[in-house]
């Protein structure tokens, strides 16, 4: 056993010393090399290196040139082809899009009509029931608070024609807020009355912000405002299917000024009626 140990020790010492030799001789990381190496060695190396580098450079130049030429040619061809393709594609796409929109619109219209009818029927029934019970007022109040609590989904009025109606008044919001103020409630009450008198009318509610704040956050804030208005109108008995929403964030200020006076005017909920479809 002792004998083997000695053999191992000898092997170990041998390997260790070889390793040590290698470690000490091995080139260190180039970043720490100080230019203290023998001048002549570098020059000798450099000559070979220069030649190789020159060759590599020439090769690289030639390659780069060929590549650039090829690229330019391909690019020109590709561009011409893409242009033609793009034009054709654009036309077919536009056509397809128009068709799709038309279909979607018709479907949405039918669906909305069906729902509106159903809603109307339900409301008539409900009213009759409530009248019978004589507690209409109480229940309506309950309904109001419940609706403000639940989420309603946005409805986008794509590809429609809209116009303003003097009867529908704008409402205003506080900075960075989306709750309906007391003055806003009164306005929405009047707007709801108009909607009840014009049961065929569908409206688009636009949410707007002042220029302060970021583009992204203001888009979300404007949407919150439009949705608050929508929810409030629903709570006043207007059917959700008649209420489309869109947020323009800070993109469409009514007054382009940069002071509190203009900001107040720009933080608004605006109403348009949809005349087409």
């Amino acid at each position: 056993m002792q004998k083997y140990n000695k053999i191992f020790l000898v092997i170990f010492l041998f390997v260790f010393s070889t390793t040590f030799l290698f470690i000490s001789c091995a080139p260190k990381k180039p970043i720490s090399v100080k230019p203290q190496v023998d001048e002549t060695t570098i020059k000798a190396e450099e000559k070979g290196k220069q030649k190789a580098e020159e060759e590599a450079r020439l090769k690289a130049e030639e390659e780069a040139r060929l590549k650039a030429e090829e690229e330019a040619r391909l690019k020109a061809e590709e561009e011409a082809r893409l242009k033609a393709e793009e034009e054709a594609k654009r036309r077919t796409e536009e056509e397809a899009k128009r068709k799709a929109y038309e279909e979607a619109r018709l479907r949405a219209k039918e669906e909305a009509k069906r729902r509106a009818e159903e809603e109307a029927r339900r409301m008539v029934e409900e009213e009759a029931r409530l009248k019978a019970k004589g507690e209409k007022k109480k229940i309506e109040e309950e309904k109001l608070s419940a609706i403000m609590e639940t989420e309603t989904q946005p409805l986008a009025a794509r590809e429609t024609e809209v116009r303003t109606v003097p009867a529908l008044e704008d409402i205003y919001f506080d900075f960075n807020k989306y709750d309906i103020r007391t003055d806003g409630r009164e306005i929405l009450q009047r707007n709801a009355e108009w909607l009840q008198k014009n049961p065929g009318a569908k409206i688009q509610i636009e949410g707007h912000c002042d220029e302060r704040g970021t583009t992204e956050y203001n888009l979300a804030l404007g949407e919150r405002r439009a949705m608050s208005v929508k929810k409030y109108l629903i709570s006043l008995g207007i059917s959700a299917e008649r209420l489309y929403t869109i947020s323009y964030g800070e993109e469409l200020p009514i007054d382009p000024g940069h002071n509190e006076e203009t900001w107040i005017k720009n933080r608004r909920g605006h109403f348009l009626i949809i005349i087409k479809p």
Partner: protein
Amino acid sequence: MKDRKTEYRSQKPIFYLVFSILCFLSSILCPSFADTPDIYLSITRTGGSKIKIAIPDFSLQEGITDRENLSSKGAEILREDLEISGLFKTIDNKDILNEVDSKDKKSGKINFKEWASMGTEAIVKGHINVEEGKFNIECRLYDVKRGEQITGYKYSGDRTIFRQMIHKFSDEITYRFTGEKGIAMTMLAFVSKATENKEIYISDYDGHNIRKLTDHKSISLSPKWSPDGKSIVYTTFKYGNPDIYSINITNGKKTPVSTFSGMNMAGSWSPDGKRLAVSLGKDGNAEIYTMDMDGKNLSRLTNYRGIDTSPAWSPNGMEIAFTSDKSGNPQIYVMGSDGANLRRLTYQGSYNDQPSWSPDGNKIAYSSLNSGQFDIFVIDLVGNSFQQLTSGKGDNQNPSWSPDGRNIVFSSNRDGRYQIYIMKSDGAEQRKLIYIEGGGYSPSWSPRIE
């Protein structure tokens, strides 16, 4: 006891043997891993010092009249590139530069000693010739101390890519000295109202070569580059609702990505380019979702009845920073990319938004309302500290990092209308990068484009 000792002894040599063999192998292998022969290390940056480089005006093929001043323009582009990189100091005394250069021309060789006396460590010489309407630019980089050429390239192309050819050599120089890929070939995307409507524009990273990308004649917002640099997602009102579209920057092809009712706001691509983090209003209030590039496979990450917006994917793909008003006003939060492990990041100020991760993932730049005006701040996620980068100069918004993490592009209205500005990532050297009639908003810096 005795037995154990023997056992121990008998194992020891074997252990040493294995260990020494490992040492032996590693001593052979390691230096070859550390060696990166492409990179030129005779001139090295120590600490934050910059490499001094001289770039005299390019020489021009004989017999050509330089009507467009290309010889000085070429050198100017390269000088600017190297200055923006933050790694080089260019010799800015043009008189001395051109004087020494003309001596070189007379003697037919480079007088390295004379260049060395100016304190310069490297020189670039460029030569332009025109062949059948095509430009050939030869660029050579020299080591002054050693008096030898480090690298040389010849680029050719038409006049429209004159700047790109020089940018390419700038990236080559950066790579030679640092082993790091340059950013001179990267691009910016931004919004401008140069026509009547807000449209998406792109430009070279130095603000030149501005091109209008969309023509929706509507409102188009918030462009964000894909990780491969080939397309941009943005939000447009073109079809009656704020929808997300994607546009291919080479052929201009537009593809609908997310067109739910209510707001669709593009936020950020996953680093692998497969998923998009967005803010959708379809549930009645803005929530963060991730989706495939065709708007399918929706995954909802937030569930809070308020505003959740501006998602930004971390560079390692593990986390998403975003803005939420759950505390009563907009603040920045971070969550896992599956929506778990939510934590609040900002507590200072009442309005923090537009988080943007540094490329190394250690920092997040954001906009913060600070005494009535927006300023750009950086929060250090490692050191848990934050730093204000802009102050006292109008509103400053939309920070976006350069792919090397050394620069931040942003929009500012410090001179009236919003324009695109650039600064170093520590807030130094703030300057206007792009002036465009109609203003510049929401800049996004492209990745390195291969």
